[in-house]
């Protein structure tokens, strides 16, 4: 990271969804705004900007993190995965995304990227959760539309699919 005299501006290098970027940013630029405005990856949404709603959640070195509570300069040298990077290879939708679609786990879609990131990280470490565990794991993501029931069903169904027990069902 190079530092300009006033230390207000910094050049950062980040990998986002397996692609490398080098950009000059203000120190105060939030990672959420860096992703959305500098990189034009608008899948990451901004709901509250103080860490409670979870819409801005991304993976930072594989772990969920609030991008609104991370400065872009803190991401220098790190790897970010956004919702745009969840489906890999030839997939159009990841199994989790497929399950959200099948179970009507979104309405307006504003919270959805945050839920997908949080759930995908959770299922990696917890492939066989109970419903109660899923609800606890998602408690940091707020949804104003769905009432959560279909979100939870989608995550449980995706867990089954990822365990190889089924494919995400059309409901």
């Amino acid at each position, binding site marked *: *990271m190079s*530092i300009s005299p*006033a*230390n*207000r501006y*910094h050049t950062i290098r980040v990998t986002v969804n397996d692609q490398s970027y080098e950009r000059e940013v*203000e*120190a*105060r630029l*939030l990672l959420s*705004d860096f992703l959305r405005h500098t990189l034009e990856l608008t899948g990451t949404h901004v709901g509250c*900007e*103080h*860490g409670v709603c*979870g819409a801005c*959640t991304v993976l*930072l070195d594989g*772990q*969920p*993190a*609030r991008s*609104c*509570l*991370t*400065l872009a*300069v*803190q991401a220098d040298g790190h790897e970010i995965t956004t919702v745009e990077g969840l489906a890999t290879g030839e997939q159009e939708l990841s199994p989790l995304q497929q399950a959200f679609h099948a179970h009507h786990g979104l309405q307006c879609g504003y919270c959805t990227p945050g839920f997908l990131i*949080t759930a995908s*990280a*959770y299922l990696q470490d917890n492939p066989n959760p109970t419903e109660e565990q899923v*609800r*606890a*794991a998602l*408690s*940091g993501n707020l949804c104003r539309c769905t009432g959560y029931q279909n979100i939870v069903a989608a995550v449980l169904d995706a867990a089954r699919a990822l365990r190889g027990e089924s494919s995400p069902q059309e409901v």
Partner: protein
Amino acid sequence: MKPAPFDYFRPSSLEEAVALLQRYEGDAKPLAGGQSLIPLLNMRLARPSALVDLSGIPGLDEIKQDGQALLLGAMVRHRSVECSALVAERYPLLREAVGYVGHPAIRTRGTFGGSIAHADPSAELPAVAALVDASFRVIGPSGWRVVSWQDFFVTYLTNSLEPEEILVEARLPLPAQSMGSAFLEVAPRHGDFALVGAGALVGLDAAGRLSEARIVLTGIGGTPWRSSEIEAGLVGREPEARLYRETGASVAASIEPESDVHASADYRRDLAAALVERVLLAAVSRVPERGQGEGKL
């Protein structure tokens, strides 16, 4: 909203970090995990001229045992505490409490030192620190000093550090392995700020009576709350439901919680009484010789 402009530094040594804080004459803030500081910046409740990011300083993120204490570097992420085999084996109290800190995404970034230094009145880790009589190593322009938890926590969101000082390490005395512990909090939703939280650490003598009992509360005042009088009164007592209920009641009578938009003072008092009862019950049931296994909270 967005933060006001600031300078940003990522020094690679504590000496450099302290020098930077001095350069800004009290108007620079150390940046640890940012999970409490950055919301303040985003809402412009804080407008420091500079941030000094501590993440580039080696050696601040270690969890080690040092004799009869656990040493936690200020930059230890909550997630590391959750995943630490050493903590799981020797510090179940800490493991239980850290699970209540925010949500997984917060725990990825948030740090032990940051939580302590931020001194939120309903935070879990300051309460754990108080329960086990933790002390903190601090570095500043005048060098190193050690601060007891009583001297560290001043009031709501206020610690006793000078603006050019940095909390570097916490020393948490290890409870004897013959003790039982529990931590429990009530929040509107799992992961939200606690309305009230309680922790207990107990030991039993050969006759099965309490040899030691410590209780801490968070969320009912500006700093973690303990009462040496109530704790002393438990020594030698028979650990049973009536005692836990009485203790809950005397704790509730001793505290002066505030009313706010989240809970009234009366409700916090009721919660305190109930939580004290439950953590005492659970802690006693987890004393190894009791053989009753995990007390359900």
